[in-house]
């Protein structure tokens, strides 16, 4: 008999949420992560709890996912977000005209919007480019990219999941056409051992293609990095977006005493080798200062790259054309049992991704329990040892 019902590979937000969901459904779960949890894309993203407005015109499926999950996460994980809303700022006449599409798109997707005049916007955010023509307020929020998923880890762990950081998959072991075990290396001791399971879940985001290669199946993943720049100073309280079709350097997310400007988009083969193009850092300064001119004088704190796990065919070159929605793959279609992949999506939709994955996993295992209610009490953000009482701080 296998040691676990479900073995999750990948300790990012998606893996955390899948571990949490499956544990609530009564399964015995373990999760392996080659480094510290949230050390891949999860911790490094922009820190934006999307309202979905950014996708409301061109990618309605993603927009609807975002606003649904945004609403649920605010309810189940209070204290994980700076409830600061977001502004979409129109600077040119063309952008002002585009605001009609944005507002209409948001209404179609169920995203609350409020149109603000130039003066109203400047009263809320005095450092905005004074040339702005109008703005649209939406329920974006700042999230702590690491601590929000840590709540899912802490809760899963308290409910019995075995979370194994610094544990890297080195091989997959098959029995017939089914994956039956993984061989892992514990990097704390450099010792290898095996973990048996009924089903193996690839939740490695931009690395999911590499993991799928080890199993001999295909995941159409395009690791698509973007550059972000953090500057000293909280230049706004709300998330500031450029009101136009998605482009580079058009979002400023305030985080603690920093402002984070992002991002750009290109496509790489190896998610471990993203690089940090110098011209992209300068582009963040240039584009960011069209929204908030003080970006140009702000002191540099950090610049980094993070890879999105976009789903798309080989040949996509900028990543901008690819949808931000997620997809769960059952590799039985390629003749491999006991192995599924969840990828794509966004940090803001981690809970929904997990629910979809858990539904597929339970169906495959013949484990007939209903999905847990979306509202669960969560552990507080801080503890890695969840011996404290539950709280909804």
């Amino acid at each position, binding site marked *: 008999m296998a040691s676990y019902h479900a073995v999750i590979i990948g300790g990012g937000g998606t893996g955390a949420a899948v571990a949490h969901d499956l544990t609530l459904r009564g399964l015995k779960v373990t999760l392996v992560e080659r*480094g*510290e949890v*949230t*050390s891949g894309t*999860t*911790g*490094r993203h922009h*820190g934006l709890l999307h309202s979905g407005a950014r996708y409301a015109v061109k990618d309605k499926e993603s927009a609807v996912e975002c606003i649904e999950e945004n609403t649920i996460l605010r309810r189940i994980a209070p*204290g994980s*977000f*700076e*409830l*600061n*809303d977001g502004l979409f700022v129109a600077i040119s006449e063309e952008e002002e005209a585009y605001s009609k599409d944005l507002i209409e798109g948001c209404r179609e997707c169920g995203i609350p919007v*409020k149109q603000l005049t130039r003066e109203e916007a400047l*009263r*809320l*955010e*005095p*450092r905005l480019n004074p040339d702005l023509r109008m703005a649209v*307020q939406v329920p974006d929020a*700042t999230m*702590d*990219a*690491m*601590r929000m998923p840590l709540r899912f880890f802490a809760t899963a762990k308290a409910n019995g999941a075995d979370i194994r950081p*610094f544990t*890297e998959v080195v091989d997959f072991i098959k029995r017939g056409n089914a994956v039956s075990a993984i061989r892992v*290396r514990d*990097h*704390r*001791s*450099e010792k290898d051992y095996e973990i048996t399971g009924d089903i193996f879940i690839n939740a490695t985001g931009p690395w999911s293609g590499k993991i799928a290669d080890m199993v001999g199946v295909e995941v159409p993943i395009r690791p698509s990095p973007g550059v*972000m720049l*953090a500057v000293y100073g*909280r230049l*706004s*309280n*709300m998330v500031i977006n450029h009101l136009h079709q998605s482009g580079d350097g058009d979002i400023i997310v305030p*985080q*603690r*005493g*920093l402002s*984070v400007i992002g991002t750009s988009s290109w496509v790489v083969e190896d998610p*471990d080798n993203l690089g*940090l193009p*110098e011209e992209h*850092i300068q582009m963040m300064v240039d584009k960011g200062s069209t929204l908030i001119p003080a970006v140009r004088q702000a002191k540099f*704190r*950090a*610049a*980094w790259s*993070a890879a999105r796990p976009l789903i798309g065919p080989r040949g996509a070159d900028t990543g901008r054309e690819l949808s931000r929605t997620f997809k769960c793959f059952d590799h039985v279609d390629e003749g491999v049992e006991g192995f599924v992949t969840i990828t794509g999506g966004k940090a803001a939709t981690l809970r929904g991704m997990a629910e979809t994955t858990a539904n597929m996993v339970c169906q495959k295992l013949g484990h007939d329990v209903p999905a847990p209610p979306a509202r669960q009490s969560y552990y507080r*953000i*801080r*503890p*890695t*040892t969840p011996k*404290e009482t539950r709280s909804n*701080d």
Partner: protein
Amino acid sequence: MTEKTVQLKVMRYKQGQSSPTYQTFPVTVNENTTVLVALTDIRRDQDSSLSLRHSCHHASCGTCGMRINGEEQLACVVKVLDLGTDTVVVEPLNNAPLLTDLVVNMEPFYDRFNTAGLPFIRESEFLPDAEVAEGIENYMRCENCIECGLCVSACPIMGSDPEYYGPAALAAVNRVVEEPRGLETESLLDWVDNQKGCWRCHVAYECSEVCPSGVDPGGHIMALRRQLTRRRFSRLLGG
């Protein structure tokens, strides 16, 4: 962009080993390469067993604290070439149990921090002249302290007295006293009013020196002492 090869002398330790060793890796870096990226490059290209903690890459999560050339820093915001040394020595934080390589066990640190009970979200103090958007009660933001443990590693008392609560927890207590937001402060003041708490500090201010978030734990400890002194006087006077 200039490229240069620098030697990273990294402390190594795997469980079962009798004591840590040092291993030197040559790394090609440019002006933008941080110590963190240099370490992950080593892991990718030279030694996949090198273990470290990292997450946000911009000094917002607090996971990549380590000692770089002997000083507590977040590896994600230290550029290798800015250090100006041909060999860069990288070691794990002090005053926390070593798990492997550059990874220490943060659980005792978090446990003390939890006793302080500091909420993660605080009132935003910026833009006092701005209005608050409709639908938002008031702007909130994350606390400055990112729980990285640099102050605890740098504190000269922590090494000799494991009972001492340390600068991070004491600063957190003072934040609650400053902005209680419904939390009870008297029992917290009782918790720190002793030789494990804020009277143990020797006022070296190493904690404030190394804090990457401008928290000034040393200042918070002094503020707690003032608060406790006031409390004693008011009790003496029956207030």
